[in-house]
C-alpha cells in the first residue's frame, strides 16, 4: 500500500457550516440508488475499526425485504484510547442525525437509535435537544424518521454490533453468531444498518461534497480522512482529523515527545508498533502488521522510554478479562490465562518459554473466538510480547 508522504490535517468533520438542513433536504430528493452509488464510489469504510465498506452495508439493508428496518448509530465508544465520537456528538451532532436520516431514506428505515455509552451520559441532554430540533425540521419537510437515544451502562463489549443489539433488546450484551448479519437480521431480527458515529459523519461529508472529494484523499484501499484520538506520552494529546495512509514515522514526528518507544495503534485491541518499525508502518485498512499497514478505530497511544511494556500489557489484559462477555471459551478463559500467565512469567513462577504457549493460545483465540473482542486480544498480546520479550521475563 502506498504511503502518503506527509501528515495532512483536514477539517471536514468539525467544520460547522450549519448546512445540515440543506444536505438532508437535497439528499432525500435524490434516488436512493444514486446515493448508494455515490457512497460506494467514495470507498468509505467503517470507522469503528472493522472497516466494512459502508456503501455495501447500506445497499444490503436497502435490498433486504421487510416492513421494519432500523438505523443504529454506535456511540458505545469504549476502546481504550478512543474519544473521538464523544467530540463529534458534542460538537456536530446534526451531521450524525442527518446521516442517519439519509440512511433511513435509502434503506426504508423509519426509526433510528443512538446507542450512547453510559460513560457519556453527560452528553444526553444536549444530544436530545439536538434530536428534538432535528425532528422538528424533519416534520417541517414532512420526512418521517425518528431518532431515540438508548443509554448503555458500562459494557465495552456492547460496542460489538450484535452485542449492542442484544443490549438494546434488554438482554446481556453477548455477541451473536454470524451469519446472519445485521443487514438481514439485526435489531429485533429486522434488517438493521449499524454504523459508528464517525462513519456516519463521513457519509454526511460525502453527501454534501460528493464522493470524489472524499475519495481523492487518502491512499488506495484507505480513502478519505479519519479522526485520531491521540493520547499517552505526547505534548499535544487530543483529536485530529488526518488523511489516511500516513506513515507512523510522520505521525510520531508530529505527535511524539522525542522519546517515543512505541505506539499502540487501535487501542487495546490493536497493535503495538515499536520504534524500529515506525517508518514501515502506515495507517490504513489493508495489509498485515508486518507488511505494514494498521487498521484502526483511531486510537493512537504513545509510550516513551519510561514506560514498562509489561505494565501496558498487564493493563490491557485486565481490561479484556473484565470486559469479555464471558460466553465463549477462548475469550473468557483465554483472557484469564493470558493475564495470569504473564504475571507468572514476570514473577518467575513460569519459565520464559511459557510465553510461547501463550502466543499459541492467542492464535487459537484469534481463530476461534466468537467475536472481535476475543479475536483481537492476540493483536496487542503478540505485538507486545514479540517486540518487548525482555520486559516480560523475570
Amino acid at each position, binding site marked *: 500500500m502506498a504511503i502518503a508522504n506527509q501528515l495532512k490535517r483536514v477539517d471536514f468533520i468539525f467544520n460547522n457550516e450549519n448546512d445540515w438542513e440543506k444536505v438532508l433536504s437535497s439528499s432525500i430528493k435524490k434516488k436512493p440508488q444514486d446515493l448508494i452509488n455515490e457512497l460506494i464510489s467514495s470507498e468509505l469504510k467503517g470507522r469503528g475499526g472493522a472497516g466494512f465498506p459502508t456503501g455495501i452495508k447500506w445497499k444490503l439493508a436497502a435490498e433486504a425485504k421487510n416492513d421494519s428496518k432500523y438505523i443504529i448509530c454506535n456511540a458505545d465508544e469504549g476502546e481504550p484510547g478512543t*474519544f473521538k465520537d464523544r467530540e463529534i456528538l458534542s460538537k456536530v451532532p446534526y451531521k450524525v442525525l442527518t446521516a442517519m436520516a439519509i440512511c433511513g431514506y435509502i434503506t426504508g428505515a423509519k426509526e433510528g437509535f443512538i446507542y450512547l455509552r453510559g460513560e457519556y451520559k453527560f452528553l444526553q441532554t444536549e444530544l436530545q435537544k439536538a434530536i428534538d430540533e432535528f425532528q422538528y425540521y424533519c416534520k417541517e419537510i414532512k420526512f418521517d424518521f425518528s431518532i431515540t437515544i438508548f443509554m448503555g451502562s458500562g*459494557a465495552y463489549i456492547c460496542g460489538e454490533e450484535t452485542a449492542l443489539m442484544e443490549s438494546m433488546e*434488554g438482554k446481556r450484551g453477548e455477541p451473536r453468531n454470524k451469519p446472519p448479519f445485521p443487514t438481514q437480521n439485526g435489531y429485533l431480527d429486522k434488517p438493521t444498518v449499524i454504523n459508528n458515529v464517525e462513519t456516519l459523519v463521513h457519509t454526511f461529508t460525502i453527501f454534501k461534497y460528493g464522493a470524489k472529494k472524499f475519495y481523492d484523499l487518502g491512499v488506495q484501499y484507505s480513502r478519505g480522512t479519519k479522526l485520531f484520538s491521540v493520547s499517552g506520552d505526547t505534548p499535544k494529546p487530543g483529536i485530529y482529523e488526518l488523511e489516511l495512509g500516513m506513515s507512523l514515522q510522520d505521525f510520531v514526528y508530529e505527535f511524539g515527545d522525542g522519546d517515543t518507544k512505541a505506539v499502540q495503534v487501535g487501542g487495546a485491541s490493536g497493535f503495538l508498533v515499536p520504534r524500529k518499525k515506525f517508518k514501515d508502518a502506515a495507517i490504513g485498512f489493508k495489509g498485515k502488521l508486518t507488511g505494514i499497514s494498521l487498521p484502526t478505530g483511531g486510537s493512537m497511544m504513545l509510550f516513551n522510554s519510561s*514506560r514498562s511494556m509489561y505494565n501496558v500489557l498487564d493493563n490491557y489484559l485486565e481490561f479484556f478479562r473484565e470486559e469479555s462477555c464471558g460466553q465463549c471459551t477462548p475469550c473468557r478463559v483465554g483472557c484469564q490465562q493470558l493475564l495470569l500467565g504473564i504475571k507468572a512469567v514476570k514473577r518467575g513462577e513460569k519459565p520464559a518459554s511459557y510465553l510461547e504457549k501463550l502466543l499459541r493460545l492467542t492464535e487459537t483465540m484469534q481463530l476461534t473466538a466468537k467475536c472481535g473482542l476475543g479475536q483481537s486480544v492476540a493483536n496487542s498480546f503478540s505485538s507486545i510480547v514479540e517486540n518487548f520479550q525482555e520486559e516480560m521475563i523475570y
Partner: protein
Amino acid sequence: MNPIRSLIRELAEKHGRRRESLLPIMLAVVEREKYLSEYSMVEIAREVDIPAAEVYGTATFYSFIETKPTGKYIIRICKTITCSMKGKNLVLFAIQDMLKIKLGETTPDKRFTLMETNCLGWCHKAPAMMVNNDVYTELTPEKVRDILSGYMKINELN
C-alpha cells in the same frame, strides 16, 4: 404504594412492557436509587413480565448497574492504560486517604462509594473520573481533594 414500586410502574407505562424496555427501566431506577435492589428487580420482573433471574442476569452484565447499596455519590476512577500512566494511583490514594475507604467501599455516612472503572474516554485529559454522571479530568491529588470537598459541602447544605 412503595415509591420505588410506583416509579417502576410509571416507567413500565412510559417505556412499554417489553423486553426492550428493561435496560431503560433499570437505568431509571439506578438514577433514582443509585443501585438496583432485590426488591426493585422483583418489581421490574413483575411489571415487564420477565423472569426475575433474567433481570438479575442482565443487570449484573452492566458495570454501571450496582446491585448492592451504594453511597449518594459513586466515584468511578478510570484505571485504563493512559489514566494509569498519568497518575491515577496517586489520585486514588488521595481519595482513599480523604474518605478513609478502600476500593469497593462506601463511607459510613453513605455519601461516597469508591470504585474503579474501565476507559472513560478522556485519555487525552488523563487521569479522569466520574462522580455519578459528571466527569472530572486532568486530576491531581490536590484537584481531586477540592472536587470532593465540593461534594461534601453540597451534602452539608442539604
